[in-house]
């Protein structure tokens, strides 16, 4: 029986690829346990999986973990949507005005290369510690990939479509709504996916410096207070959270948009073609 082809939930859970992945994780945990237990170093330096699990339960029972998770997620969502809004707005302005695009394109390229961590000290001075600094940073991180990709999409849009609309008497807004925006939607989706990934990393860095709660704060506060088991709990939560966001939201969003439109093909699709 080929279980990988079974459409039932049990069939999906018994998928050989999934089982191999789980086996890999279990092997890693076993190697970690053996290494930590028999290495001779203290649990502060190298906590065992059991120490980490205990720390996880302690944080959960003390109500700390849920507050930190909620804070991190709310900052992430606000930052990402704010970044999308800013990125799209600036891209539309620059994309439709050649003079402005010529003036600001070198600046866009320059700032795209400046990592978010370099801006953090300045944001803390300007906005202080807290939500404003974190959301501003995430907006910066998300806006640039969207802006960059959308500008690239506008530049590569066949001019014949725009000219055709113009000959029919379309206004600038109609050209934007019916030609440019649909034409660059795949680029926006790609930019959004890149920005969402960068934003997650930026969130952890921002919380380490500018917050008193959140998963990033947990990671650095744990290490500062000799609770390395809590640091590892934070790291595992960070990885698991990103996996959930990616698998449950970003990939389905990509499948429902640019893959469905044929703009991107997956490895599986290429193998079957």
């Amino acid at each position: 029986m080929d279980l990988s082809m079974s459409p039932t939930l049990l069939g999906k859970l018994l998928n050989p690829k999934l089982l191999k992945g789980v086996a890999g994780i279990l092997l890693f945990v076993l190697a970690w346990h053996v290494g930590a237990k028999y290495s001779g170093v203290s649990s502060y330096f190298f906590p065992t999986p059991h120490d980490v699990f205990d720390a996880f339960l302690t944080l959960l029972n003390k109500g700390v973990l849920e507050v930190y998770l909620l804070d991190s997620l709310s900052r992430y969502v606000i930052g990402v949507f704010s970044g999308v809004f800013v990125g799209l707005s600036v891209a539309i302005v620059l994309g439709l005005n050649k003079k402005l695009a010529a003036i600001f394109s070198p600046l866009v390229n320059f700032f795209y290369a400046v990592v978010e961590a370099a801006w953090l000290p300045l944001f803390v001075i300007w906005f202080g510690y807290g939500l404003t600094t974190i959301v501003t940073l995430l907006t910066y991180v998300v806006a640039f990939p969207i802006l960059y990709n959308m500008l690239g999409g506008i530049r590569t849009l066949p001019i014949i479509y725009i000219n055709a609309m113009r000959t029919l008497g379309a206004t600038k807004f109609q050209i934007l709504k019916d030609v440019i925006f649909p034409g660059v939607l795949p680029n926006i989706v790609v930019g959004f996916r890149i920005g969402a990934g960068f934003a997650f990393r930026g969130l952890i860095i921002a919380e380490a410096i500018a917050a008193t709660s959140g998963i990033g704060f947990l990671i650095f506060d744990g290490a500062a207070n000799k609770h390395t088991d809590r640091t590892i709990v934070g790291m595992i939560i960070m990885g698991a959270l990103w996996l959930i966001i990616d698998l449950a939201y970003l990939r389905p969003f990509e499948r429902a948009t640019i893959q469905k439109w044929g703009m991107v093909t997956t490895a599986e699709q290429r193998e079957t073609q």
Partner: protein
Amino acid sequence: MNKYRWILHPSLAVTMIVLVFSLVTFVKRDFKAAEILASFEMVPEKKHTIMVEVGIELEAFHMERFQSHGKMLKVDANKVYLRAVTSKNLDWFAHQPWINAITVWNRG
């Protein structure tokens, strides 16, 4: 079976699990908070002096939360004494899962 397959879509499944879990947690806490708040008389628009009995070992995180909801008088083992606690803050305390009981002495 086919028409229910959409339930297994990852984004929907994750969202539903999170929503249901959150709902159950909030409802449980609401019941617990109602029990705690029913054991004393809360006077709206007045500030209360209270003793909070906690069920955990306190950390800097909890102290910070205490400070933002009242003026801390002292900490004695698992009992924390605070004054100038408003009714809204009392409600917050009652909803925390790591708080077992609250004793209130209303300002006269």
